[in-house]
């Protein structure tokens, strides 16, 4: 019996073959047309390209893995990736990479792209990876993790890497799909999707999801263990509600996509000096966009044009006790918000010259329509901040993939970004990709990337909070050298070794000035060096696995100390074990992170977290059923907290469960 599996591409296997039996090499010719239609032939560096030829170390997670490992959010997916880490402060999730996970920073040194659309918003330049992320992970077709400096092609925020999400389209559905899940901590999620494609070239997908979790009923924080603060117990303050909407419509060369997410999260940690155990402390995040894309090939000239409108709105309602020490409490609700709208367009041309030069060139413009930060006490009303700084930026880029010899490629590119806040940023990258023999490839890469100072750092100016803005900030800059070695072992096992060393200058850090005011300045520097190695494999009986190890040292340039929240070792492994051919799979996952330093100078122990998902499909037509246990061994571990927290570190969830049912018809 022939079976097909997907893994970053495709695998074929004789499912009936057991361990000891001889297996045939994968042969596409033995696939049916339906199976061939599911094979992806994909691209990594803005145009179609094989992973081994991309000017970076790239790994891919597919929708198949998302199901089989029971991933609930993008954060779950990221945690399993070589060199990546995610920490959580019970409000937002923070992505660290290459040992750089400085607390108090938002996710602005990673660029997130969804179907070619830039997701980082325009106030904090951050991305969301928890339930406040735009796309329900069920709708992900594939996520590409492109490591290293990527500003030469992608501009701002492509500092340590790019996470590129490609969503599932109407043609992948051909009907209706309903999904429902229930899990520990009273967590429920439902989704309805409908997608279809028509021979005329018309395709559509619409989907909506809703999530509700009560969270932990009681969270104990010893830092607040006082009768006046409920003995350190935050009661019913961990709940979270979110919803996602997605619509993708395409007709011939045009694609119109709209996405929206809204999330409400109660904050149990009394961050930012708020009153502890006050049920009114919540944050709200809304993010959405409309994106119209046109792609057409005029002969050998590929044209891609894009016009988009984006929205991001955040606000928090925070209780503050304004009473002087010793006086009875005088709690006032404060509202902090960022309200943002922007539009932009992009034009990109691709052409091959003399059969040796594949050239990609383009330009981008982004104009901000609303860029407002606002802070006030609700009752009695008092305004602390209401600032609107409309900024805009544009960029031009050019990249040439020059095939010097059939097995030697030089990929060189440069991008010029212009921000009206600080001026210009130039980001070059050069990669030499050498394949001495068919299954081996070496990549030597030098790249520079930047992160522009964001509106929060520039313009958040509230003397009453002892915080002032700094419109003179310059961008942060990274210079990075990488060596990537990729080897297909045996027939189709892939080994990757990726070493890197980067120097970061002009890091924006919050300082206390002589006048006791907090201010952001380009004062810090860091160096991060490391090596990651990863082995990916797929076996004849449907067995699939991935094991990676990362060693990294991220140090402060001035003190030479290892950075806060920077584990030196990480090990990640995941397996898909077919229990009943093509029908029932076990997906164990294991993640180890070594000790990390906290802001308070403490050391958090290293830990191992194991997850296990049992996934079944085709038991009944159209039905998929899965059961997952997260943190299977109930490991107690903590993530470092930011300066906004009284707690130096935040304990993470113990063992939780989820069951999920998906039905397609």
């Amino acid at each position, binding site marked *: 019996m022939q079976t097909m599996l997907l893994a970053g591409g495709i695998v074929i296997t004789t499912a009936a073959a057991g361990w000891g039996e001889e297996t045939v090499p994968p042969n596409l010719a033995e696939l049916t047309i339906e199976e061939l239609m599911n094979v*992806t032939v994909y691209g990594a560096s803005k145009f179609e390209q094989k992973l081994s030829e991309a000017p970076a170390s790239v790994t891919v997670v597919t929708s198949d893995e998302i199901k089989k490992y029971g991933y609930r959010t993008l954060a779950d997916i990221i945690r399993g990736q070589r060199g990546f880490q995610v920490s959580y402060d019970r409000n937002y999730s923070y992505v660290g990479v290459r040992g750089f996970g400085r607390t108090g920073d938002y996710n602005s040194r990673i660029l997130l792209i969804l179907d070619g659309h830039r997701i980082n918003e325009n106030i904090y330049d951050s991305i969301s990876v928890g339930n406040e992320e735009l796309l329900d992970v069920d709708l992900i077709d594939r996520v590409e993790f492109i490591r290293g400096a990527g500003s030469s092609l992608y501009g701002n925020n492509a500092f340590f890497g790019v996470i590129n999400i490609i969503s599932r389209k109407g043609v992948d559905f051909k009907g209706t799909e309903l999904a429902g899940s229930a899990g520990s901590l009273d967590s429920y999620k439902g989704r309805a999707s409908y997608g279809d494609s028509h021979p005329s070239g018309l395709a559509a997908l619409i989907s909506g999801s809703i999530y509700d979790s009560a969270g932990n009923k009681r969270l104990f924080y010893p830092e607040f263990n006082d009768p006046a603060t409920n003995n350190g117990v935050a009661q019913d303050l961990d709940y979270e509600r979110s919803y996602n909407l997605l619509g993708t419509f395409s007709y011939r060369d045009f694609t119109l996509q709209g996405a929206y997410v809204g999330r409400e999260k109660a904050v149990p940690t009394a961050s930012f000096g708020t009153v502890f155990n006050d049920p009114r402390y919540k944050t709200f995040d809304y993010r959405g966009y409309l994106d119209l894309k046109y792609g057409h090939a005029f002969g050998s000239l590929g044209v891609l044009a894009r016009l988009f409108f984006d929205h991001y709105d955040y606000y928090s309602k925070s209780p503050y006790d304004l009473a002087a020490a010793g006086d009875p409490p005088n709690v006032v609700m404060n509202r902090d918000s960022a309200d943002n709208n922007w539009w932009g367009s992009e034009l990109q041309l691709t052409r091959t010259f003399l059969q040796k030069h594949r050239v990609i060139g383009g330009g981008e413009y982004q104009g901000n329509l609303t860029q407002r930060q606002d802070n006030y006490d609700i009752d009695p009303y008092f305004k602390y901040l209401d600032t609107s700084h409309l900024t805009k930026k544009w960029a031009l880029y050019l990249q040439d993939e020059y095939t010097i010899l059939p097995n030697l490629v030089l990929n060189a590119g440069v991008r010029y970004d212009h921000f009206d806040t600080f001026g210009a940023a130039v980001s070059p990258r050069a990669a030499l990709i050498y394949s001495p023999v068919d299954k081996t490839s070496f990549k030597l890469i030098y790249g520079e990337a930047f992160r522009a100072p964001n509106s929060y750092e520039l313009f958040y100016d509230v003397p009453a909070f002892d915080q002032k803005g700094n419109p003179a900030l310059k961008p942060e800059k990274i210079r990075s050298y990488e060596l990537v070695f990729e080897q297909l072992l045996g027939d189709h096992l892939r080994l990757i070794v990726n070493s890197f060393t980067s120097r970061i200058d002009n890091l924006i850090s919050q300082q206390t000035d002589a006048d006791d005011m907090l201010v952001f300045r380009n004062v810090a520097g860091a160096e991060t060096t490391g090596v990651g190695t990863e082995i990916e494999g*797929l076996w004849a009986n449907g067995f699939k696995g991935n*094991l990676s190890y990362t060693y990294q040292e991220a140090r402060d340039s001035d003190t030479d100390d290892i950075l806060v929240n920077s584990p030196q070792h990480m090990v990640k492994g995941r397996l898909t074990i077919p229990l009943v051919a093509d029908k029932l799979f076990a997906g164990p996952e294991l993640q180890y992170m070594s000790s990390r330093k906290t802001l308070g100078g403490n050391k958090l122990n290293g*830990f191992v977290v194991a997850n296990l998902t049992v996934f079944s499909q085709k038991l009944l037509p159209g039905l998929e059923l899965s059961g997952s246990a997260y943190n299977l061994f109930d490991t107690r571990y903590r993530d470092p907290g930011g300066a906004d927290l009284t707690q130096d570190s935040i304990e993470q969830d113990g063992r939780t469960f989820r069951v999920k049912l998906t039905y397609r018809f």
Partner: protein
Amino acid sequence: MTLLYLISKLCGVANRRQVTFAGLVVLLLVFPVLSGKALAMDGLAEYEVKSAFLYNFAKFVEWGAQGTAGDQQELGLCILGKDPFGGGMDAVKGRPVKNRRLVVKQINGIDEMGQCQILFISSSEKGRLSEILAAVGRSPVLTVSDIKNFAQTGGVIGFVTIDERIRFDINQAAAERADLQISSQLLKLARSVVQ
């Protein structure tokens, strides 16, 4: 086993169960590697997949009497123009189809089309497409190409790539002109059928 050692060393902080689990994971991962049973990974080259499509098309098309005259042992798949397949055809070359052997050959002009049941027109021939299709005329040949709008301009099967997946359009009228019977199963899978 160095990996196992590494893991257990790194898991110094972990308890026994976790180390056991880690060991199990590593063993499961390493064992099949050592026994050399690895299978495919990585993204697939577009033309490897297209070659498999071509082979499959042959199974779903019936040639008229004239089309199957000539060599009864071979079914000719001809590539007209610059060969984009590289080694991609190796997997299908010589495979049995309709009791014949699939023979792949590269041709440089339509005059060499004699023994071709399937004609793949490379995108290098884009500029000459209308001449080529005119020259093919009513010959009993299954024309396939990934030149844009191939099926719409009179070819029989045109590849299109949508969301990195390969789809195809079929021109029913062109198939009839060439006296080809395309199975309803294939027609059903087509993105669009041009009448």
